[in-house]
């Protein structure tokens, strides 16, 4: 637990009778980019708001950069930037005006405000098209970028982004990814998003939560081995489609996908099997059917698969406990 820039210890958050966070603990190392994943209502926004000092936890400790958020939220907020989901903005201001206002509130020295806001507006692709425009006239994509620009303003060590890429087009998403990459190692970034492929690209570590509990945490490779039940293999096999299907079915192995590679009956087959039996399975198939397996490789599960398996496993365990 020692050494993390964010330390969450046994955090509980209740809203009346409903428990949003059920005693969760985790640590985020300095300079890392961490993805927070969970289904709707899992408690992601509650964690982020507590870390940002916007709401207080019911029990437990949250320490950001050595400062307890509950004891001294204002001091803790000096080290933290937060972009809320949906990013509500004051419609009556112009983009440049708003960012200068936010920079002032965040304690950016007066002589640096202009340079800082212009730099971040350029990075977020706001400078030329939007800096003089009223916020109320802007599209969702622009508003999201204003929120990201606001979060990146100043020198805060921890940046918390709640669904930052909703409403952005692929070019803009790449732009945001570049901004995050540019601060990698210097700032600690915590991102919550439903776009898992995006998180997979930018994050070093992941925390998966479900119903207020952490169900898995770690690097992508670590999570993959943690949630692995069966490996997914990709094999190139020669033979007729019908025969391939028959043989796999007879051996109780489910084919995830079957794609023709060439005209002469060469197929790319994706299937799941345990580490121990996949080679013997293929040998058996070859011996029984005369099918020839050319190439076999293991496919690492994607973040989406990891997320689905982790949350499903948690649900199943819960059901077992109840029974």
């Amino acid at each position: 637990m020692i050494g993390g820039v964010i330390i969450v210890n046994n955090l509980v958050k209740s809203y009346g009778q409903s428990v949003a966070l059920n005693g969760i603990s985790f640590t985020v190392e300095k300079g890392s980019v961490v993805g927070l994943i969970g289904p709707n209502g899992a408690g992601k926004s509650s964690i982020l708001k507590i870390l940002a000092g916007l709401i207080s936890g019911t029990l437990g400790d949250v320490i950001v950069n050595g400062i307890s958020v509950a004891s001294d939220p204002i001091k803790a907020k000096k080290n933290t930037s937060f972009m809320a989901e949906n990013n509500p903005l004051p419609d009556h201001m112009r983009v440049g005006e708003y960012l200068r206002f936010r920079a002032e509130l965040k304690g950016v020295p007066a002589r640096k405000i202009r340079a800082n806001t212009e730099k971040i507006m350029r990075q977020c692709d706001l400078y030329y098209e939007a800096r003089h425009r009223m916020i109320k006239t802007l599209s969702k994509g622009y508003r999201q970028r204003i929120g990201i620009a606001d979060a990146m303003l100043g020198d805060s060590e921890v940046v918390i982004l709640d669904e930052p890429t909703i409403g952005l087009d692929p070019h803009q998403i790449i732009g945001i990814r570049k901004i995050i990459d540019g601060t990698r190692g210097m700032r600690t970034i915590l991102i919550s998003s439903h776009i898992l492929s995006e998180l997979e690209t930018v994050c070093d570590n992941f925390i998966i939560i479900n119903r207020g509990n952490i169900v898995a945490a770690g690097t992508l490779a670590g999570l993959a081995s943690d949630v692995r039940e069966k490996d997914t293999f990709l094999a190139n096999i020669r033979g007729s489609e019908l025969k391939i299907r028959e043989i796999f079915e007879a051996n109780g192995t489910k084919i995830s996908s079957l794609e023709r590679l060439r005209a002469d009956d060469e197929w790319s087959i994706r299937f799941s099997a345990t580490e121990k039996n996949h080679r013997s399975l293929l040998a058996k198939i070859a011996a029984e059917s005369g099918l020839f397996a050319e190439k076999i490789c293991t496919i690492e599960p994607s973040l989406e698969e990891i997320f689905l398996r982790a949350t499903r496993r948690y649900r199943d365990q819960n059901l077992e406990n109840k029974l």
Partner: protein
Amino acid sequence: MKNFWTLLKYEIHKLIVSPSTYVISLVFTFSMGAIFAFVLHNYTTTDYDVPFAQMFFRCFWLPTYATIPLITMRSLSEGYKNGTMQNLFSAPISHLEVVLAEFFAAYAMFILLWLSSLVPLAAVKFISNQTFADAAFASKFNIAGGLLFVGLVGMSFTAIGILASSLTENQIISSMVTFFMLMALLLGGLLLANSPKIANLRLCSTYNEGLSFFLQLDNFCNGLVDSRVVVFHLSSCALALCLTTIAVQRKLG
């Protein structure tokens, strides 16, 4: 409190660009014009033993009760409703700074509106060659005392309006709560003033004096600044703002 000025500028900017500010100003100006014309007409057709300015300020309650709920109803309610309040608090600022900025912006607008209402007084003086030194029309004491009193009452009333807006996301409810709270204060004072048994009790007597706005106004217009009245309104304002800060903390956290 270093963010107070930044927040105050933000709140004043919000008022300046809001169309509702201009609607309120227009309604206030027309109302004050009508009141001024009505009082002036009465003053010129009937003999009164009080200066014109004092008679004019006696009508303070009508525009005050109408405008304060309208000025303050957007203050915090709007921020709750559209989520900008939570966004604001992601920066290292205190609840008190936000509440004070909201209060002073609304109060500045109230004072500006009242200062603008002195324009007809100056115009009449200019047209009729009457001077402010003419005690029968409007002495400096009448005007300064009347304005000081309106300023004090406006301070505590604005704070009550801000308190009401911190309790709800709905602006209509906020303005209605403000209006009924202010009416309760006015009617409470009148009720106590007309109930000798209650008014004779020591505690109630003090309260009664604190709420007898018309009696206080006459004293102020005559140059008699009662420190108890000043303390009453300052402490009411401070109490309302403290309660507002607590309400904002509870609402957001």
